[in-house]
């Protein structure tokens, strides 16, 4: 099997595994995750501004985005 085939088999196995895994946090159990205090970035301007303070003074940059969580509705 060449590399492409191997990757396809791994992806298929992950997909199969994923398809048979039931979400262990049910949609009706997401009250805590939906709480605004659990969001990664509640204050949009402030978050970007603080990242900017550091990026313009340090040699490091990047890696600070975050998504996901929330109520998972719809």
């Amino acid at each position, binding site marked *: 099997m060449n590399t492409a085939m191997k990757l396809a088999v791994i992806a*298929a196995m992950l997909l199969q595994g994923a398809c048979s895994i039931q979400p262990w946090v049910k949609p009706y159990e997401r009250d805590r995750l939906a709480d605004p205090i659990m969001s990664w970035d509640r204050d949009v301007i402030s978050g970007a501004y603080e990242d900017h303070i550091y990026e313009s003074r340090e040699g490091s940059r990047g890696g600070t985005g975050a998504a996901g969580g929330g109520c998972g509705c719809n």
Partner: protein
Amino acid sequence: MNNSTANIFKRCALAAIVIASGAFAADAGGPAPAFTLTDLSGQPEALSQYKGQVVMVNFWATWCGPCQQEMPLLDQMYKKYKPAGFTLIGVNVDKEAPAVKELLARKPVSFPVLLDPANQVSKAYHVDEMPSSVIVDRKGQIRYIHRGYKPGDENEYQDRIRQLIRE
């Protein structure tokens, strides 16, 4: 790729297609699981009380945005079709009652709201999306399950309800 991997792929792809094919998916036509839950004043109510009527069981939470959006529309629908033998039961899944009371005090609805804080009924109905609406016919069979809410879905609800009322 060997045979079993191919089969797994096929089963998975099929499952994905079925799920992706729309928010409305006909259930296997099984009986609606019976339940008894208390309302906000502590009075128990059972699904069986409504046998003979078309019932929509709507699962919602105070922390779910789309749930809030559809509530006024559900209320209108309830008032409109109630005389024809339709009931809407709002099953709330919040862990604690105070937030529910406070929300309903600000935005009251006329349909019965029952509390499912232990999530037993949600589990029994395999709720896998918030909000979810399960439409049960006069004989107590689940006929339609609608997952999620997007503006315009209330038209679909009404179509299904009218259809079942006529039966």
